[in-house]
Every structure is written in structure tokens, then in C-alpha cells.
């Protein structure tokens, strides 16, 4: 009867939520957008997604083996990074470039800073920006084959490029924007799928509404103030994907409620600045990366005040 009793500090029970479960929820939430990308861009999108995910997992495994660190591929965070990176690439991207991007995301942006939870910038966003600079040709080769009139794939502009150039003839309708029937990155075009995934994450309590709401509301408000088409600005480009999946990343965004709101508003403002007055048609990824840098300061600024009840700390 008198076996050895475990003697450890309280608490002796723990919640069901684990890092793995959170990452699994994000993967589930990304599935509608993945399905939409296959429908919109064809089977090659599946290849791009597969390559990115596989490379990310292999890189994480390899790097951790090399550095004799604990293996973390089973927490699924590398899979999430791979999926998000793939969603930020055009379907025509050469495979070796996708492999390169995944390598940068996992090794340079994530592991060199200490692995999960330690990176200050979002791996997928940063890798996408590096690729945009390195392979500006292939990274902006938007192909959309869904137009029924043209059976062969044709190069087409994204809705934002069309809007920036003022070529109204190439601007898709709101419904097409909502369903994602236009050129763009794999995962960003179908607003409906992203909203569905975002709702799932909200219901599961993985993300809070503060960042996406602040981000999208700022973009909407600024578009309205600047006299642009509000709904068009909100539904096009990577705004929804960024606001729901990238600006809510745990380690690179503030954890406090007001911090999240400040982060979202900041992202919205920078996005609008780049979209309306910058050289690039799209600024979501730059805005998130820039705000990532501010995250520690925002967190410090908005830290909870301990309940000291009038007593001086």
C-alpha cells in the first residue's frame, strides 16, 4: 500500500488547452481557405501548400536536431507557419522558391531567435516580405484561370492593383471579391472562407475579437475618410487573412486587451498609408511586421495594473 507518493507543488490539475490543441485549431480554421484556394486556383495550389508545410516541418526538425534541442514538430506550429506562408504566395510560384521561403521562415525568423514563442516577428509574414523583395517577378505573377471566357490561364491583376491603376474594367464585383474569384495569393482571395475560419477561432477562444475588429475597422474608417470604396478595400488584398490569422499570432502581438486594440489600429493605419500613398499596391504584411516590432512597447504600456487597492506598489 505504502508506495511512493508524488509530491509536487499545486495546482494538481490543468486545463485541456495545450499548445498543440491551439495550433490544431488554427489549422482547422485555415482549412476552408485551403479548400477555396484549390477550387479557385486549381490543384497546383495543393502542391504549393504541401511543399511549404513539408519544408517547414523538415526544417524545424532538422534545425532542432542540429542544435540538440527538444523536438517541437508535434506542437504543429511549423505546420501553421507553412500553411500561412503558402497562403501568401501566388499559385505560379516556382517550387524551389517556396522551399526557400519556408526555410527562411522557420530557420531564420523562428529558430534563430529561439524557437516557438521567442520570435519577435511573424515567420510567414517576414518570409513573404523577403521573397517579395528577392523574387519580385514571380511573387507578383498573379494568375487567375477561373474566368469562364478564357479557358487558358492568363495573367491578371489583383483587385488592389486594378484599383490603384484605376482600371475599373478589371475590378471584380463585390460578390466575386467575397467568394474569391479573382487574382491574388492562394489563401487571401476568398473572404468567405477566411471569415468562416475566423469565426471558428473566436468560438474556440483561440483568438479574441479585439485585433481583427480594430484592424478591419481602422481600414474601413480610413477608406471612408479618404473617399475610397470601403467594402472593396476591406474585402480585397490580404487584409482579412492578415487580420484574422497573422495579427493574432500569440508571440508577436500584445497579449493585453488594449494592446491588441492598439496593435490592430496601428496595422490598419500603416496598411492604408501603403495602399493609398505608397508604391506598393498592398501593405498588410508590412504593417503587421512593423507593428510586431512595436509589440514589446505596446505590451509594457498596456500591462494590467495589479489589484493593490490604494496601497502603493
Amino acid at each position, binding site marked *: *500500500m*505504502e*508506495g511512493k*507518493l*508524488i*509530491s*509536487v*507543488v*499545486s*495546482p*494538481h*490539475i*490543468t*486545463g485541456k*488547452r*495545450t*499548445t498543440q*490543441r*491551439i495550433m490544431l485549431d488554427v489549422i482547422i480554421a485555415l482549412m476552408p481557405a485551403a479548400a477555396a484556394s484549390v477550387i479557385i486556383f486549381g490543384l497546383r495550389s495543393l502542391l504549393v501548400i504541401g511543399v511549404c508545410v513539408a519544408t517547414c516541418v523538415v526544417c524545424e526538425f532538422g534545425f532542432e536536431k542540429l542544435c540538440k534541442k527538444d523536438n*517541437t514538430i508535434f*506542437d504543429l*506550429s511549423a505546420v501553421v507557419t507553412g500553411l500561412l506562408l503558402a497562403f501568401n504566395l501566388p499559385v505560379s510560384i516556382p517550387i524551389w522558391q517556396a522551399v526557400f521561403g519556408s526555410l527562411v521562415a522557420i530557420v531564420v525568423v523562428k529558430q534563430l531567435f529561439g*524557437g*516557438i*514563442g*521567442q520570435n519577435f516577428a511573424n515567420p510567414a509574414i517576414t518570409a513573404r516580405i523577403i521573397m517579395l523583395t528577392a523574387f519580385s517577378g514571380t511573387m507578383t505573377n498573379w494568375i487567375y484561370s477561373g474566368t469562364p471566357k478564357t479557358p487558358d490561364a492568363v495573367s491578371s491583376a489583383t483587385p488592389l492593383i486594378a484599383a490603384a491603376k484605376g482600371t475599373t474594367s478589371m475590378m471584380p464585383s463585390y460578390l466575386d471579391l467575397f467568394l474569391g474569384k479573382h487574382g491574388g495569393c492562394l489563401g487571401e482571395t476568398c473572404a468567405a472562407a477566411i*471569415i468562416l475560419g*475566423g*469565426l471558428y477561432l*473566436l*468560438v474556440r*477562444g483561440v483568438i*479574441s*475579437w479585439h485585433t*481583427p*475588429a480594430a484592424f*478591419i*475597422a481602422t481600414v*474601413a474608417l480610413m477608406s*471612408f475618410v479618404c473617399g475610397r470604396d*470601403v*467594402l472593396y478595400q*476591406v474585402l480585397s488584398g490580404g487584409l482579412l487573412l492578415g487580420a484574422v490569422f497573422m495579427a493574432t499570432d*500569440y*508571440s*508577436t502581438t*500584445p*497579449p*493585453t*486587451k488594449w494592446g491588441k486594440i492598439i496593435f490592430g489600429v496601428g496595422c490598419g493605419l500603416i496598411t492604408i498609408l501603403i495602399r493609398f500613398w505608397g508604391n506598393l499596391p498592398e501593405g498588410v504584411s508590412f504593417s503587421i511586421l512593423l507593428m510586431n516590432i512595436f509589440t514589446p512597447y505596446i505590451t509594457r504600456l498596456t*500591462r*494590467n*495594473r*495589479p*489589484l*493593490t*487597492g*490604494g*496601497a502603493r*506598489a
Partner: protein
Amino acid sequence: MVSVGFCSIIIMFVHMMHRLIFYNAMYPAEKEPDHRKRIGGRKMRLHGIKIPHKKNTADCAPVRIEIPAVVTIPMSMHIGKPAKVIVKRGDTVKVGQLIGEADGFVSSAVHSSVSGTVQKVDEMTSSMGAKIPCVVIASDGKQELYEEIRKPEVNDFPEFVTAVKASGVVGLGGAGFPSFVKLCVKDLSKVQTVVINAAECEPYITSDTRTMIDKGEYVFEGIGYLKKYMNVHHFIIGIENNKPEAIAKMKALAAEDDEVDVCVLPSQYPQGGEKVLVYNTVRRIIPKGGLPLDVGVIVINVTTLAFIAEYMEKGIPLVEKCITVDGSAVKEPKNVIAPIGTSIEDLINSAGGFRCDPAKVLYGGPMMGIAVPSLKEPILKNTNAIVAMDAKEAAPFKTTACIGCGACMNHCPLRLDPKAISRAYKLDDCEGLAELCVDLCMECGCCSYVCPANRPLVQTNKLAKGKLRTYLTNKKAEQAKKEAK
């Protein structure tokens, strides 16, 4: 524009539904109880967590266990100085006889829980790690009551405090703070409200629930004593809404007394934490390092109060305890009444025994309970539950890297930042620890519970508190030295 607004509304709606579905218990808590409307004050929601209730034993009326052959009664079952042993080997003792007298102000008397012979006066290691004297008594099984036990004579407040002191009662909710010290208020006009802690927010434990159901009249008699001797005229009984039977009983009894409010609180751990309970009942924040009295409140556990009333009537000191025996390694979860000093092994064996070999046994509930080193450990005055876990339930959690989700700081009822605290602790940044108010931490365990990476945040907080305490003491000593020069 319309669609954007529409989308935001949908998102907020979903968030609210999520709150409603996942964060609300089975029984509705009163949104704003009447007494709180009278009090007014700030409306802020303290954070907390939803944990499984596991109140399996709420319907089990406590049964008295067989008197064990031997009891080991430690002289320190309270906060403060251990009691002084006043018996020696070979002495015959009876139930309720004083065997250890209070040593100093913050201390408590200890009484024999069985009749029999003192086998030895020994030393044992307490669960806090200190060496404390203890008295081992071999029971004769007769349970004869000590002859000198009689109803205490109480006419005024000092006599009331003396009687409470003589009863040997300590905070029975688990804290073990000698109750008379709490009641010994210099300026009685400062006490505006007495908050009776019946929240019992830990999983498994139902001993307070049983007190309310079985001894509800004593609770109100106790309120009567406080009214009479302490001149307090506002009482709030704070109960979590997962105890409908106890709430019904308390409400029925309170209906005859308009100075008693029954406050039904949401089942959100740690509702029974002193600071949390005081805020949620009277909307006042106990200052850091202060007492509830600083905001005009005395907090007393419901079982403690019922015991005081029973003592006033019968004069039998604290010699037995109602204890919830539960957990995955226990065959029959139930409530039992056991003499203080009964070993955990005897207690569980006479309460139906183990289902399998226990891997971890706790004094108290799984959130704040202390894991005992062996089954020979005795039942203490402030033990309200024994939870025995099987190997599966007791399996250690796997700790992974912090992902910075902020769940710890967003669930801390006192709004601390455990992540920043553990960082400051590792960096030996004591000024930082002071700034982060780590000494405010009550070790409720919310942060560790919600952490998806299962980081040992409570442990770090405890260590950090120790580090800060040492640092501040040294700093003070250094300053004193400088001034002396």
C-alpha cells in the same frame, strides 16, 4: 460600410455567445444582488477560471468513522507559533482535554481528539517543512468526554474572544489562521460587514456545503453571537451557484433576518479567495499587505462560524472535522467526520478504502492542495478534504516553451503578470518583482491551470515571493545599518 458594421456585429455576437455558453455555469448567478446595489461602488469583473466542479459528495451526509487505534496530533495546525505540549508520556487523556496550550498571541490551543493514553511526545515534519512537536495518543476506544467540559460563560465581547480562543478553532476553510485573532478587533466600530465565506470554489470539496445543509441553524446562531458581541449588523453569505441545496437552506434561514444577505456568486474559481470574495460581495479592494478590516470587513469561513456557535452551546473544543474523501484513487467518495490526528491511511481505509494504489494524495482540493509525502500524515484542524489521485490523474504535466498567449495574465484574479514575474525571477531582478507586486499573489493556481504550455507559474511565483521577501529584509537591515552609522 454596412457590411463592415454587420461583420463586426456578428463577431461581437459570436464572442458574447461564446461567453454565455462556455463561461456561464449551470445555475444563473444573480447579476447584481440587492445589497450590492445598496453599496454601489465600481463594477469591474475580476478574472478567474472555469474548472470542473466534481462536487460528487454534495449529497453525502457525513458519517463518523471508526475511532483509530492511534492518533498523531501536531502542535502546529495553525498559522503562528506552535502550541506548547502540556502532557507527558503515560498521561491519561480524554476527548477535549487540553494537551497543548497557545504560545504567544498568534497561536492556538490543541485538544485531545480521543480518550486514551499518551504514547509519546514526538517531533514531526509538517507539510510546510518545519519541525514541530506532536503528541501521539493510543485510543482506548471509549471516547469519554473530558469532565471539565461545559458550556462557556459569555457575557461580553472580551469573554466571547476568550471563549473562541479556548475552543482552539482556526480558519477551517484551509488557511488555519487562529479565528480569535481575527475577531479580536480593537475598534469594533470599524467593522461594517461580516462576509461569510461559503464559496467553496475548489473541485471535489463539499464539507462546507454539508455544514450549510446539516448545520445551517448553527451558522445563523453564530451570526447571532457576532451581532450580540461585536455589534455588527450586516452579514453577507457568499455562495457559489453550484450548491443549490445549500443556497436554498441559507435563503430560507436568511428570510427571517433582514441583516443577512445571501449572495449567490458565479462558479468561477477562485471565488473563495479572500480578496476575490470581498470584492465580489462588497465591491471593495483589500489593499496590498492589508487585511479585510482595512475595508471594514471581517471574512469568516462558514464552517468556522458554525463551529463557534456549536462550541458556545456545548463547550466541546475542536477535536473532529468533517472531511470530503474523493479522487480517482478512492473507492467510495464520501464525507466523513474524523478525529483530528487520524492518519490519512486510517481515514481512507475506514471510509471504504482505495480503489487502486494512490499516486498522489492531497490535503485539500486539487487547485491549492498540498501533496502529502506519506499516508501516515495526520488530519489537521484545517483539513477539509483528502483527495487521492491514481497514477493517471497524477501524471506530471509536460512543460513546453511559453508561446506568449497571455492566458496567465488574462486569468489572474489579482491582475498580475506571471510571465513577467518568472522572467524577473530568472534575472534576479528583485526591484522588478516588487514592481510586479508578486507579493500580492495568493497562489490560487489559475495561471498554471490555463497555461497551454503547462509552465509551473505558481511555483515560480512562490519562489519569487521568497526571493523578494529576503531581498526586502536585507534591504531594510542595510538601511538600518547605514542609519546607525
